[in-house]
């Protein structure tokens, strides 16, 4: 199962993020009857450092099902969109990532991203993230749950590809049109709702 850039943009559509103003305003924005035709995607003005992207991709590998491909590019596109023009969210994410990395260095003598996936999983569980409430201004565990774990899970399962793995091609948060709810079964991936956002 391959995650695509389209999946990342679809997940961003559920967040109100401004990346690719053209594509998001045109395809996923709150349109009016006079909405302009879709335009091509543009790029975010935000940037991610390689170490931060490494860490986020390392967390995503723990969180996502094991047979996912295209994960790193998906995470990069999604997170760039997520933090664009949202400095406080970026600061929260940066801080949670830095503290998780510091914890890895304390406990495992290595950067989080360089640990094997089992150790990364164990470290998250070791601080109680799997049962923590997501709290943006809470403890380290609660912030890791909010800024890293839940954000990346949200990106994955609010995208059509993530939804399809569970059996729903138009997951909540995704503007997948008003055709899929009428169907008896999932449509082919080639006709995903993300490509039919103007239906109905």
């Amino acid at each position: 199962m391959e995650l695509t850039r389209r999946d990342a943009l679809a997940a961003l559509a559920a967040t109100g993020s401004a990346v690719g103003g053209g594509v998001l305003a045109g395809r996923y924005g709150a349109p009016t009857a006079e909405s302009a035709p879709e335009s091509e995607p543009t790029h975010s003005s935000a940037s991610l450092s390689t170490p931060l992207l490494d860490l986020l991709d390392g967390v995503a590998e723990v969180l996502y099902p094991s047979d996912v491909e295209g994960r790193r590019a998906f995470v990069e596109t999604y997170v760039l969109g997520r933090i664009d023009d949202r400095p406080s969210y970026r600061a929260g994410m940066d801080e949670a990532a830095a503290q998780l990395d510091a914890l890895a260095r304390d406990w495992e003598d290595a950067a989080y991203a360089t640990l094997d996936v089992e150790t990364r999983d164990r470290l998250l569980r070791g601080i109680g993230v799997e049962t923590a409430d997501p709290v943006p201004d809470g403890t380290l565990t609660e912030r890791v749950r909010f800024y890293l774990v839940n954000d990346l899970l949200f990106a994955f399962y609010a995208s059509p590809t993530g939804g399809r793995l569970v059996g729903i091609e138009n997951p909540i948060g995704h503007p997948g049109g008003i055709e899929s709810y009428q169907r008896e079964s999932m449509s082919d991936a080639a006709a995903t709702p993300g490509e039919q956002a103007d239906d109905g």
Partner: protein
Amino acid sequence: MAEQSDGGVGDGTDRTPAARADVCVVGAGPAGALVAHRLAAAGADVVVLEAGPRFDVDRRREQQEAVIRPGMGDPWEMGGPRDAYTTGGRGYPLNAARVKGIGGSTLHWQGMVMRLHERDFEMQTRHGVGADWPLSYADLQPYYAAAERAFGVAGAMDNPYAPPREEPFPLPAFPPSHSDSLFADACERLGIDMHSVPNARNSEPYDGRAACQGYGTCKPVCPSGAKYTAESHVRKAERAGARVVDHAPVQRLEHDDDDRVETAVYATPDGREHRQSARQFVIACGGVENARLLLLSASERYPEGLANSSGVVGRFFMDHLFAGAGGRLGEPTRQNHIGFNTSECHQFYDDSEPVEGLKLEFLNYAGPSPVMEALGADTWGDDLLEQLRDAYGTHVAIGALVEQLPDAENRVTLDPSERDDHGNPVPRVEWSLDGRTERAIEHANAIQHRILTELGAEVEWTVGPDATGPAYHQMGTTRMGSDPESSVVDADCRSHDLSNLWVLGSSTFPTGGAMNPTLTIAALSLRAADALEAAL
């Protein structure tokens, strides 16, 4: 000229009073917005005072994220000292049940818009319960049609139990869901009729708003603008010249010696009070705050509260009760693609045993949404995927609204033991169910179980009399009637006591039926607008 001030909001918008207006409207929900628009369009000088903020429509997808992701707070920012309340009896979750802001509770509503039935207007005459309305369905019928045009209602003429209507709906109905088709076979075998749902939601572009995009979060946030909110008519009112002031909670109304309201005293966040005078006053702030504002406006002449010589302001508080049952089938049911329903059944609505109205809703959002389930899960990776696959896909459910008849002991009062952010006593909501309401809920459950069993579903849960809760339709606290001794307003929604005071909203309903109330709120408001215009 008085110095301008934004009232401490920090946005530079002037919130000082305007010159004496023709009409001052308190509350910018659907009732206030429709009246403000109609009167401004007719040339009246209109000022609207709204307690809550103006929510930026460009942030609606961020608000949607807050709905899906735990830990991001209430997208409509309800709660805190501004909205403090107390409750008694069964208890009422007031701040989950309303929104303060431009658009009012249509910001978070689901958007189901049915007309009341003819019998709802004469429950005392027909069945010896509740109270008759001082107007009939026929009186309201043209205003129902106008309300449907204002909202852009998507519906079909396929409901054999609906009251007479004069014209098709403005927009075509949303097609039935796959799960509706599963229910249809079972219902047909049982002799139960299903039909479409009138939705205040664009099935195609209408009135400058988009068609539904299928975000799936209609209640409480529609990012596409397809769901009607009263922001639409606030914008129209402003274009017609109305002045709309947000962050301006009205503290009390003051009257002169001739039984006319003269001034609305409102506060701004900087703590200052301002005085807006007008020739006519409309209060339209919801089923609890309408009563509270009248009680807060007690004077020497009206010591029990303004417009309350009958003593019934605050009494007869009602809501609709939710009854439901659900389970799982042995096949995919395709739930949670959209956040609204496409089929209902009004077949049992006019029954006399029990007499309480009842409507059935075939849900399109039974069971969990995978993304929301994932965000609350205590595992991840392949384990999470397996858990989600097990949790999602085969759920079915039937909901229902059940009528609650008026009871004077269910009421809104002032609670001086607690104060809001401006030092006013908070509202206290006393709300309980009686035995007959509980039996009506059990009756709904029995029908639901019959259908689910016929469908072949394993019933896993039932919301009956113990677990029931309100549908967030606050009604009855300023009831209308012909007799000033037993009602607050007349059929035009005009106060019996003060000739230039009008009270709009579901607080005027003498009985509530079992239909979602907003279309009736809108119809009554448009009717009141005609009377108000004539009074100017």
